[in-house]
Every structure is written in C-alpha cells, then in structure tokens.
C-alpha cells in the first residue's frame, strides 16, 4: 500500500475542495455571512451572566420579534446598561422565564416580548426552549471547550452557516440534502420551509439580512411561507380562552414570586403586519387576550397599537424589524420606559 501517496493526494484534494466550497458561498453575499451562530452554547454563555447580575440589570426575554426588534447596543447607548439578552429565535420564552425566576436570585427587571400565538400556546415548541435551559446546566467541560474552539472558525468561514433549527437555507450537509424534494403529495400539509432571515452578533442581537429590507422579491419569499401556516390557526374559542387563562394563571404565580423579591416585569407586544396581524387578531383578539392578560398579571404592558413609536416602522416580512429600524425602536422604547419610571437612566458614554 502506498499510503503516503494516498494521504498526500487526499490532503491536496480536501484543501482544494474546501477552499472552492468556501469561496463559492462567499459570493452569495445576499444570503450568507460568517458569524457565530446563536445556538444553545451562545445562549448559555449569556445565561451565565444572570448569576452575577444585580437589581440594576435588565434581562430581555421573548421570541424572535424581541430578538430582532431590540438591539442591546442601542439599549446601552440610551440607558447606560447593556441588557442580558436571553431571547430565543423561534422559542417561546416561558421555560427561560421559569429558569430565571425559579433557579436564580435575580431581582432586576425582566422585559418580556409577547408574540401571542407562541406565548399563550403551551404546545408551541416549549420543549425546544427547555433543551437550552437543560444544556446550560448539563453542558460538559468538553462542550464548553468545543464551543470556544469553534468561535474563530465560525466567525471566519461562511460555509459554516448553519443553525440548530436546520433552516432551509443553512449550509450544513443535512440542510443541503433536505432541500431536495419530490412534489408528489405523499404527505399532506403546507410544506412550510423555515427560511433563515438573518444572522446575529455575539451579544445575540438578531440582525435581518439587508436583502430583505428593500427587495420585494426576497420579502415575498418569506411572506409566502407565512401564508402557508398562519391562516391555519383556529378562531378564538372557549378552548383558546381556556388555554390562555391557564397560561395567565401559571405566569401570574411566577411573576408574583419574582416581584416578591423586588423584581420588576414589563411586557411588550411588538408590532405585526398583514397576515400575522390579521390572523393573530382572529385567534387571540386583543380585548380578550392581551388586555385580560395585562390586567391579571398586574405589570406594565406596552402594546404597539397604543404608541406611535411602536407602530411607525414597516416590517419587511410582516413580523420582524430590519436592523436600522430596530435601533431606533429600541431607543424609543427605552426612552418611554425611563419616562414612565420603569427604568432608571445611568451614565452613558
């Protein structure tokens, strides 16, 4: 066996093919960028900050709208404190809220984003959120080291664009293979494609791809996907009411416990447009859900319909803000919270 020859040949071919692969994806600038993926490891790194947080600190919780719409750098510029960002893209926040309230001594401020369809439906992806909480407690030293080693690679290589959610446009082999489909209706359903609409910085701020801001073709690519699933939500009914009330009851107990140790909670209902707004109103009308929730929970609530600064931005794909609008929106929100006495302004640079 001429193994040396085989090894050398394999090495040359591997380096060449990986280089070509990387260079190719680097040309797809509309879709791909090298960044440290917002996975359970990055979340755990952020979650660890809660252990040392003081009553002056703020924790952001919520799903993707809170992740895209709030920018912690803009927040810090305005208030003087960088919030701990524990939002979760595609993840309802309840398990995170439970974790912070039940497993820590944190007594600062929680700012919680509410996306009604995900927030009040206990069957919506809670297990995925729980896995991240579990990972924070169970992660091994090997996983921590692996995460540190992966950072320089992910920061610099576009071909490593992938997510735990296995989005349609990820670049790992599994996602690439899953793009292949045979349209023969063997299984019924909407065939929803989870398309990644942005990336994140290392403080876990979600940033929408610039291509979505002004290009209607890209926007339609996403809104077409929303149109496959959102119309399927049921109308408001007794069943929905019971589900919502159950959630309100559970959250009320948690919030009471948190307030009991000096903590403050603020709820924010971010803007939604078109299909998202229409079908949310149909399944969870404001007067029956949001109003009832804010009344029961006895916390300040900010609804986008009540404040001009919350509804003035156009959402490129009906649900999330682009990066620039997110900064303005964050600043306006922080000013409002300071004005209303919920936050204190600290020295800023």
């Amino acid at each position, binding site marked *: 066996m001429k193994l040396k020859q085989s090894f050398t040949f*394999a090495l040359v071919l*591997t380096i060449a093919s990986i280089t070509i692969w990387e260079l190719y994806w680097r040309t797809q600038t509309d879709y791909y960028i090298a960044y440290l993926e917002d996975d359970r490891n990055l979340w755990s790194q952020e979650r660890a900050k809660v252990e040392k947080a003081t009553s002056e600190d703020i924790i952001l919780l919520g799903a993707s709208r809170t992740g895209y719409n709030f920018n912690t750098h803009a927040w810090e510029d305005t208030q003087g404190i960088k919030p701990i960002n524990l939002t979760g893209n595609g993840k309802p926040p309840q398990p995170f809220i439970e974790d912070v309230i039940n497993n820590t001594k944190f007594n600062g401020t929680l700012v919680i984003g509410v996306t009604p369809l995900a927030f009040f439906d206990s069957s919506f992806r809670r297990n995925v959120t729980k896995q991240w909480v579990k990972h924070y407690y169970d992660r091994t*030293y090997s996983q921590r*080291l692996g995460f540190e080693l992966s950072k320089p*690679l992910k920061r610099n290589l576009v071909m*490593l664009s992938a997510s735990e959610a296995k989005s349609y446009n990820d670049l790992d082999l599994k996602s*690439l293979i899953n793009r292949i*489909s045979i349209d023969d209706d063997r*299984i019924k359903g909407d065939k929803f494609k989870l398309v990644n609409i942005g990336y994140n910085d290392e403080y876990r701020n979600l940033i929408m791809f610039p291509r979505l801001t002004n290009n209607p073709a890209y926007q339609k690519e996403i809104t077409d996907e929303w149109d496959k699933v959102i119309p399927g939500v049921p109308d408001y009914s007794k069943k929905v009411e019971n589900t919502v009330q159950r959630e309100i009851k559970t959250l009320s107990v948690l919030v009471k416990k948190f307030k009991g140790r000096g903590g403050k909670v603020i709820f924010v209902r971010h803007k939604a447009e078109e299909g998202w707004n229409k079908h949310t109103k149909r399944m969870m009308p404001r007067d029956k859900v949001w109003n009832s929730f804010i009344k029961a929970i006895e916390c300040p609530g900010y609804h986008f319909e009540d404040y001009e600064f919350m509804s003035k931005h156009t959402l490129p794909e009906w649900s999330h803000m682009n990066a620039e609008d997110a900064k303005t929106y964050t600043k306006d929100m922080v000013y409002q919270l300071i004005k209303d006495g919920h936050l204190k302004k600290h020295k800023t640079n």
Partner: protein
Amino acid sequence: MLFNSLSFILFLIIVLAIYYSKILNWTNKKRMLLFSSYVFYGMWNPPLVILLWISTMIDWTAGKHLAVEDNQKKRKMWLLLSMFVNLGFLGFFKYGDFLLENFVLVMNAIGVDFQAKPMDIILPMGISFYTFQTMSYTIDMYKRKTERARTFLDFALYVTFFPQLVAGPIVRAKDLITQFYEEKKATTNQFIWGLFLLTIGLFQKVVMADTLLAGTSDDVFGSAKLLHGVDAWVGTIAFSGQIFFDFAGYSTCAIGIALMLGIILPDNFRYPYASLGFSDLWRRWHISLSSWLRDYLYIPLGGNRHGITRMYAALMITMLLGGLWHGAAWTFMVWGGLHGTYLILERLQRRYLPFEITKWNGMFLAFITFSCVNITWVFFRARTFEKAWDMIKSMFYMQTGGEKILDTFTIIKVSTVIAIMFLCHWFMRNTSMKEVSQKTSPYVLGLVWAIMTFLLIIAQGSGEQFIYFQF
C-alpha cells in the same frame, strides 16, 4: 469527550505531539496516556472518574492476590469481591431505577400500596464497557488464563485506555496489557492507516448515521401516530443503518486512534448485515461483546456440553442478559429474547432441515437474516412496548389506514443508503478493508479519502452523542 468534537481533535493532537516527542521515556509516556485518559473521561463528568479509580484499585488488588494465592476458597473470595464491586456499580448506576420501578410494580400487583420516587441516578458513560473489560481480567486471573499485569500503571492504562474506554471494543487483558510492556510507536504506514480509519469512523458516524439516517429514524419512532407500513419499514431500516454506522463508526475510530499510537485493538464489526444466519451475525456484530458473553456467561452456564435442552437454555439466558446489558428496560430483554429464539431456531434448522449454502442462495439468506434483524431493532429502538407493537402491526400490515409521515425523497434516500450498505456488506463479507485498499490504486484511495473528509467537514456535525454511550 466525543471523537466527533473539536475538543477531541485538539486533545488528540496534544496527546500525539507529546507521545511522539522525545521528552518522555516509555514509562512516562504511559503515565501521560493514563492521565490523558482520565482527562478524556473527566471532561464529561469529573467526579465519575472516581468510579474508574475504584474499579481499577479493586481489580488490581484482586488480581495481585489471585496471582499468588493457592487457597481455592480465598481465590474465590477475591473473584467475588471484584464481581461484587463491578456488578454492584453496574447494578446501582444502570439498573437502580429499573429495579426500583419493577419492585414497585410487583408490590402493587400483590396488593401492597407502595410508591417510590425515582432515584434519577446519572449513568456514568461507558460503565458497561469498562466494568466488563476489567472483570474479564479478574476472571481470567482466577482461571489462570492470563498473567498478572506487571505494574499498576500497565493495569490502570488497560482499564482506562481512552480510545476504547467508553464504547469498546472490550479488550481482554492478555491482548492489551502485554502491548504496554514495550515501547510502542506506529510506523508511518500504521499512523496513516490509523488516520484513515479515524476518518472512516467519523464519516460513518457524522455523515451516514447522523446526517442521512438519524432524522428519519427519530421521526418514525418519535411519532405517536399509527404509521403506514412503508413508513414503519423505512424508519426501522433507517435505525438499522444508524446504529450500525454509529457503533461501528466508534469502533473504527477507536481502532484507528490506537493504531496511531502503535497499539493494536481487535476488530469489533465484520460486515454484519451480510451474515448468513444468526450465529454468523454474532461472529460479526459487536464481536468483543459477543465473545465476552460466550466466554464468561454461555460457557460457564454449560454451553453445549450438557445436552440440547441445557444448551438452548444457556443460549437464551445469555441473549436475554445480553439484551439487558444494552439498557435497563424490558424492551431490551425482548430484543435479546428474539435473538435467542433466532439462534435456537437456526440450530433446530441445522439439525432437522440442513441445506447447503451456495453463492446462489447465499445473498437471499443474508437478506432474510438482515430482515429478521430489522424486526428485533424495533424493540431495541422503541421506548415502549405499545410503540414497538404499533410498529410491528404497521410493518406487517396488520392494521390499515396508517398515517404517512415520510416524504418520497426521504424514502428513496434511506432505501438507497441501506441497499448500498447491504451490498457493501455482501461484497466485503469475506475480505477486509485493508485487503481491498491494498488492491486499490493509491490515487483512488486518496480520492475516496478526500470525498469522505469533504463531506465530513461540510456535514458540520453538532457533536451528537454515540448511541452506545448510554449502554
């Protein structure tokens, strides 16, 4: 630490760099390997290294006394101590909750109102592997089949050697300890071949098992619905492939890594899905466990020395316990029981309906064997009997109207991968990878190696745990 992780790559580079540097003599290199093995294990859960130390200390002490003691009674006591400690660990950590759960069930069944909170005991990674390995040493010492390890360092390294510590192959003392007596250094060819094996092992795990098959198997076995027959079969064969690539992948990595250090580990898989019958299967699947069970359970139970009935009983007990070794659940016992039944039926067939295996009927026989093995995997993979029974009903069309959850592309993908795997096993069953590589042009081998490495890199494995770590 997982082989398919960045931390392991860094760990291996450091270990190899120190191992091949000239700063350490052989004894210190062994000390370094031992220390590295504890780091390898401790990076998962440091306190559980203590279990390894206790096992090592007890079996070293027992072995020392078994080597010099002539009094049969005392010898037996030392053996029993070793077995008590090792099986005690296994019993407590692996079967504690299972035993408690069944105790509660029995109590309730006889009318005693007794409830117990699950103990939620953490399962130390690879405990079934290292306890079996270290027990083989004391049993062989008791039977005077092996010599006592020359030094404690050699013995400790035998128990803890990181390439095969958590998922085998389960190596006998005489095959591994003796390799530690003299300085080992891989030749250039051995080192490159070891690296090639490591690549193949990782490819099997990351690309074949995790990327191509695991999703389908998880979807099917995780579904609460009653499934269509095609979906149930495809999910089952996907798991069949997944578990092979996952476990054989680990063994191949272990053998490759050891070879890079100049240490030779035995084969653990020899193209098992092309087995001609079930005796053949167990000579090809997880060879180090099946030979362990044969030598330390089946033969002591009487083997084939006491008549047919006793032989069948020994066979069945061995397979049932082999099933339980894999996991603390009755479904694993059924898996073992099915294999025991297959083995008994095969022996009956050989006795009453013998036929010659030719090249014409061989492939058909291999396919039948593979199909029967797939049925057993249903019980291995399903978390409950209800799910297993639903799957069996779907697979044999004992119910109609099952739901289709797999799309056409997934069905084609899984079927193609499994068909290729089966054919590869068939064509490779009487040869080995090394033999084939020797006949292959170095450039073709290099091309195959490059393709595997490329796919491995772009697969971006998320560090999925090997299935056999839980055993």
